[in-house]
């Protein structure tokens, strides 16, 4: 099995979620993140003192998938998360040795 992780723009989350659902993925885990990269942060000014915030808000989406789905899932995310503007994020895939569903103790593909 694989774990596909995507760092995307927060606004794209619902589109990604719907695209994954449409593809047949029924579970995922999402969390907040801050990104640093080509996309610039912003400046704020408080009583004339300037602060530069370097990180931009991102969302991390993690999907556990069967080996054969890994490529397609990455593609599905890629398409739904793309806006074409700097800062769209990254997707990466990592091998997973074992998955368990906590509720039932099922393992492997059954646990997805």
């Amino acid at each position: 099995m694989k774990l596909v992780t995507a760092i995307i723009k927060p606004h794209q989350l619902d589109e990604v979620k719907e695209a994954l659902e449409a593809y047949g993925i029924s579970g995922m885990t999402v969390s907040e993140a801050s990104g640093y990269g080509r996309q610039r942060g912003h400046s704020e000014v408080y009583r004339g003192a300037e602060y530069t915030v370097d990180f931009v808000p991102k969302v991390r989406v993690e999907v556990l998938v069967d080996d054969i789905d890994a490529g397609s899932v990455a593609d599905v995310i890629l398409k739904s998360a793309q806006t074409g503007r700097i800062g769209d994020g990254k997707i990466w895939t990592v091998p997973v040795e074992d998955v368990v569903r906590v509720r039932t103790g099922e393992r492997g593909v059954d646990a997805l």
Partner: protein
Amino acid sequence: MEINTGDTAWVLASAALVLFMTPGLALFYGGMVRSKSVLNMMMMSFIALGTISVSWVLWGYSEAFGESWNGLIGNPFQHFGLDGLLGERVFGTIPAAAFVAFQSVFAIIAVALVSGAIADRAKFTAWTVFTVVWATIVYFPVAHWVFAFDGFAADKGGWIANQLKAIDFAGGTAIHINAGAAGLALAFVLGKRVGFGKDPMRPHNLTLVMIGAGILWFGWFGFNAGSALGANGTAAVAWVNTLAATGAAMLGWLVVEKSRDGHPTSLGAASGVVAGLVAITPACSALTPVGSVVLGVVAGAACAYAVGLKFRFGFDDSLDVVGVHLVGGLIGTIGVGFLGSASAPAGVDGLFYGGGVDQLWRQVVGALAVLVFSFVVTYVIGTVIQRTIGFRLETEAEVAGIDLEEHAETSYDINGLASGRFGTGSGAAVPTAATKTHEGASA
């Protein structure tokens, strides 16, 4: 004439209470928007505290309460800069300056109320310009119509107060219908927010909304009972009616929610409070406490439905200035024609108390006159601003968040982990370029 210190004390205290309502409104409104626009929402109220204070002192008071030109507008030059009002001058039983004070804060909050219709998407500079123009062309004249009684601050006052004789004790027409109609007009001019009716735009901080509602209710006792311009029986009855109608309106709104949506909500309670306060505003001297309870229940329940109109008709009155202030103001103003009781201080029987339709038509005419005038003129003002300096924010900036775009600020930094670098910026009173060296960094 001698001033009465008790009356003066109450009017000064009331003026302070009403001043407090505008920051209260800022919180009430601010809590309802998303966290990326709370500061802009609050700033739209705060800037009115700035611009209208100054306009009022310079020409606004005089426009509203100077000698009347045909009942339509006061002479703006007569008391320019409050000329002639500082000394021993007495209006009724209070110093002229106390009356100036009391009425000033009405002007401020009327303007601030309008902003609720255009949350998250108005250029701040354009809004700032709007506040001054709108006050000058719409609010000050309407205040003259409604609040300038013959022989009080000037010999001749406004037409609604003196000719039409509609009852509007504390400003159901001048403040709420006026602001509500103006909000509707601006909602049309600016158009809907990106994602309106699709994206979830739930309130980002309901505790702020509740603080705001609490402050509004508190301040509203100054608004309503203070409008007696003295510490007397009328003020006391207005106070009690303001309590009764507001409590009843909260219940009315919550009962609708419970039966329709399944849950009574805290936003509903806060909204019901405001709906009740709005409705009792024109009526608080004219109803019995039982009449006030009835008016309150009706207003609370009706506004709970009215806030849905924007989805049905597709205008983005973001924080329901129409659903609460316009509708609530109409219910209260016209309600006087039905529920007015001669046993209340205003001494006029409405339709339900055997008074026939005499007062009712006056109330309807007064309400509609303000509604139409405000809507039309505001629409024109808004359109002119949009076509000249631009009123609506760019889409991208709106999506990214108006706080950052217009104010370069972030509302909350609760966890404190946000990294960033410091530059002394221009606040250091040295040229900006030189100081942007960011001399180091560690969060």
